[in-house]
């Protein structure tokens, strides 16, 4: 199968006093039609910048792409003319952000914003666009959709705003939906509703989703494949079941073990296992493997040489000397 999206050797960062500081250090991955790929990793590891690059939405200046290619089907996104890019944005690829308030325009009604997106990308007439807007709000299960067309963003709850954003993102039936922590700010009950909704929409439309999160539980529920990032690099990537059942990279193992789960804890209070230390600050990554100062399994080589990302079983890659 051909990938829908192919990212190769992507480097993103900014210039700082004559040197280049990379926040994304050469990542490569593919998203196939109809699949959900999750990107996980801790705050600051480069998830959002990777995602923003895909639609050339990086906050430039200072952030820019230094190297790499991004292909959507056969189109080279980074080289594409603005006009062509605008044809893709919000149409073939659309995006949902973490904070629904900042990505909705507070001065327009929800209805206006959905219709505008439809009118921009289709040849539908205004009345048809309105009908479609209602239909979309119903699809994302906003109760009394007809009324909500006239609501302003501040009149909706957080969960409703996030749904409205999803409705806008879906208004042009994208082939790829990029969702950057779409449920992180929401309560679990609302999160469960939204995840269910995305799942259903993906199945109904055979859409692909690139889902960014730091919640391993959410990953397990929504993704077929997972990409784990640490300090701007991919440290492990593979199908969900491999990654959770046989994690290779010590960072992935650490993450999985440090999550408090409902199951293990009901009988007695227990200590959680910790990953010691903290993520290195941008620009002072240690030599060798970037995880070595925190790694419980590090060997001498890890301190001096950076390990390559290698495939250890079909579709399952890791960046770690322990498996060489």
């Amino acid at each position, binding site marked *: 199968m051909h990938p829908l999206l192919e990212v190769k050797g992507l480097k993103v960062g900014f210039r700082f006093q004559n040197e280049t500081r990379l926040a994304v250090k050469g990542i490569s991955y593919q998203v196939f039609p109809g699949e959900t790929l999750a990107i996980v990793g*801790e705050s600051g590891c480069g998830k959002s910048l990777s995602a923003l690059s895909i639609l050339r939405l990086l906050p430039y200046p200072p952030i820019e792409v230094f190297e790499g290619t991004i292909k959507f089907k056969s189109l080279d996104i980074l080289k594409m003319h603005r006009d062509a890019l605008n044809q893709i944005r919000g149409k073939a690829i659309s995006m949902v952000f973490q904070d629904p308030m900042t990505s909705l325009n507070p001065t327009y009604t929800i209805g206006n914003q959905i219709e505008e997106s439809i009118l921009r990308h289709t040849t539908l007439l205004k009345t048809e666009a309105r009908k479609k807007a209602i239909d979309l709000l119903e699809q994302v299960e906003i109760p009394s959709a007809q009324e909500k067309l006239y609501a302003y963003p501040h009149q909706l709850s957080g969960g409703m705003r996030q749904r409205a954003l999803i409705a806008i993102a879906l208004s042009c039936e994208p082939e790829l939906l990029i969702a950057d922590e779409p449920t992180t700010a929401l309560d*679990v009950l609302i999160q469960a509703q939204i995840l269910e909704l995305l799942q259903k929409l993906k199945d109904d439309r055979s859409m692909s989703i690139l889902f960014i999160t730091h919640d391993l*539980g959410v990953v397990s529920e929504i993704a077929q494949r997972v990409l784990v990032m640490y300090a701007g690099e991919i440290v492990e990537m593979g199908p969900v*079941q491999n990654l*959770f059942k046989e994690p290779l990279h010590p960072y992935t193992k650490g993450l999985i073990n440090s999550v*408090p789960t409902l199951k293990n804890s009901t009988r007695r*209070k227990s200590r959680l296992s*910790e990953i010691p230390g903290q993520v290195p600050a941008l620009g002072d990554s240690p030599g060798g493997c970037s995880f070595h100062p925190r790694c419980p399994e590090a060997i001498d080589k890890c301190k001096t040489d950076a390990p390559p990302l290698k495939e250890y079983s079909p579709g399952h890659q890791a960046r770690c000397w322990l498996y060489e």
Partner: protein
Amino acid sequence: MATIQNLLEVKDLTKTFPAKEGFGTFKQRVYALNGVSFVMKEGETLGLVGESGSGKSTVGRLILRLLEPDSGQIQFAGKNLLQVPPNEMRSLRKSMQIIFQDPFASLNPKKTIEQILEEPFIIHKIGDKKERKERVATLLQKVGLRQEHRTQYPHEFSGGQRQRIGIARAIALNPKFIIADEPVSALDVSVRAQILNLLQDLQNDLGISFLFISHDMSVVSHFCDRVAVLYLGKIIEMGNRQAIFERPAHPYTEALLSAVPQMYGETKKRRILIKGDISNLREAPGTCVFKNRCPIKEPVCDQEMPELKEITPGHFVACHLRS
């Protein structure tokens, strides 16, 4: 005659706020809390869980008297908190502390860590300069910060380290009781585990009681002896950890637990999907607070408010059909 005293007794706390938007000519009030009662024993950790807007932080603020309740009582260490004179309140404050979700917002950016941690000793006139320095050193060590950190400013620290500073400040005066309001919600997974372990160690070593406020059921299941579930300003279920997590009785608690995303390989609970949002315009309810979203509701739920009843020793539920 010695009776085992509760450290904290909260009775029938009610707190309303004026609603921001009201319809008609009535001035609406939002019931942030509506008759909340619970007790805490010394050394115990009580988890207070619920969705955003359920009233968790309001409970904390009332206990610390940062807010005044409309009605209700709060007893702390045998004292009626709502009636103690200001000077006595000041000394009681030493034994009650708070840790916030975002310690950054509560750390003075212009002060070094040493100045921040010395402050409680200065305010309460404890020790001389030298002794205070020693105490700061001990605090840093207790929360896993290095002595070099003394001279640094809050912005130079990561989220996890800032939370450690917040914790150090909270334990400075050897409190009996700490309110931790979402202390790990803003932290990354790996750091979250570090901070939870730190809090647990401090509790074991110092015997502090925690009122642990969180919206994360998994975190609460790790950290708390007992749990109270809050919904629209009412406790709808309360019990020890095992009761709540293994035998939840209220349909809301069941739904909350079933909605927690499970990691791959864990046995999946059947998900109970609950429609709608927690509504934020409320009136004094004479009915069940959960009725609009309840999957098992019956006509009685629209007519009467379910009382919090003890269904097995120590396990309380407010539901017409389950208690």
